[in-house]
């Protein structure tokens, strides 16, 4: 009788991460484009509202966060779209481990590939927007805590729209309203830091969002994928 060896969830988790990083490393432009988009949008603001350091510094938290949200929408689709097209998504649902594990791995990979570069160029964005230096650290912290929420919530949206031809615009319509609380508290934290008030409250809330979204999202993503893959 044929007997299959059990597989540990951790091994599958590692394998998915490894494979996706490898895949991404062979199509680097996909990763680079949202990043360049982010830089360009942030550059547009001083050109649009004038280069006065006062006004730039005042709107900087909002501008940087809104741009980050928009640019993340650009790259979100690749979370499941390619896998859906070539059938790897189907195979992912057929792995001998809970689907939530694989979904979580996909979210982690997406975060590593899209958010980490943003975190790296954050000082540059802050510099371009004349953000007062005392708020740089808090801006970076809000991005560090907030980007996992983007990846997790984004995964839900992509899971629901991945089988649609015209999913792109729909994805933003579904996701952006859900991400408003994140935007509000993130900008509030940075603004608090600008005026020298403790940003601990909003930061804690963003942290709570992060925990909530990465624990609950895999379940919603699983349900969404089951709908899309059939």
């Amino acid at each position: 009788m044929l007997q299959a060896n059990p597989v540990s969830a951790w091994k599958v988790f590692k394998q998915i991460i490894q494979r996706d990083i490898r895949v991404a490393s062979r199509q680097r432009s996909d990763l680079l484009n949202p990043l360049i988009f982010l830089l360009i949008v942030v550059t547009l603001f001083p050109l649009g509202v004038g280069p006065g350091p006062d006004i730039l510094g005042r709107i900087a938290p909002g501008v940087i966060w809104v741009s980050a949200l928009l640019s993340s929408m650009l790259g979100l689709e690749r979370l499941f779209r390619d896998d859906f097209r070539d059938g790897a998504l189907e195979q992912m649902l057929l792995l001998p481990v809970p689907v939530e594990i694989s979904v979580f791995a996909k979210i982690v990979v997406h975060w590593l590939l899209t958010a980490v570069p943003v975190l790296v160029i954050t000082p540059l964005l802050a510099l371009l927007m004349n953000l007062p230096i005392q708020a740089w650290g808090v801006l970076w912290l809000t991005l560090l805590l907030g980007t996992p929420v983007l990846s997790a919530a984004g995964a839900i949206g992509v899971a629901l729209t991945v089988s649609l031809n015209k999913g792109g615009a729909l994805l933003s319509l579904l996701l952006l309203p859900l991400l408003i609380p994140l935007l509000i508290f993130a900008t509030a934290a940075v603004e608090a830091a600008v005026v020298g008030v403790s940003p601990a409250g909003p930061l804690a809330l963003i942290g709570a969002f992060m925990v909530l979204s990465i624990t609950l999202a895999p379940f919603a993503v699983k349900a969404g994928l089951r709908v899309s893959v059939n």
Partner: protein
Amino acid sequence: MSDKVAVPVLLEANELMSIRGERTLFSDLQLRVQAGEIWQIEGPNGAGKSSLLRILAGLLPAQAGSVSFQQQLISEDREAYYQNLLFIGHKAGVKPELTAIENLEFYAAVQGVELKETPYELLAKVGLVGLEDIPAQGLSAGQQRRIALARLWLTQASLWILDEPFTALDVEGIALLHARFAEHLKAGGAIILTSHQELITEFYQVQALRLRYQH
């Protein structure tokens, strides 16, 4: 192995019904797949062959009925079922950015198969010699299909569900596949597949399930 009289039932489907859109594909469908059996799902296009395979694999919910694997409802213990299932669908799940070897190594690892060495020999066997470390997107459709089918040699799953495994294969490839099927059946495995061609082979007896197109 000792008791040859009672052949274990691997997969059992009861009163399955599937509706796509407004059309009933099939209803009250019964299927019992025992170890050592190969089943071919026949029927015209649109009769629901692929849907049936996907229902059996647990990818698509049936409107009614149940599927159990080794007397266990598959919806209740998916992980145990998927440990023993190899499903290769219409889209084979080969990542075009990865090489044949990388693709195979990934699937072997997540299915719990230990690879003792890089599967050059296997890839040579399926006709991909010299193409082992080129990203799959540079290969032809048939060659990509072969990468997916090479998984048949790297699995311990007892049940295989294959959607049109023979498409884009040449005569040699088909013969190779038949040989592998025979080997699997002899080892106590079972296969469910769809195919446009008649399965004529001296290696094994094919059971057929015919789906009619219903308006």
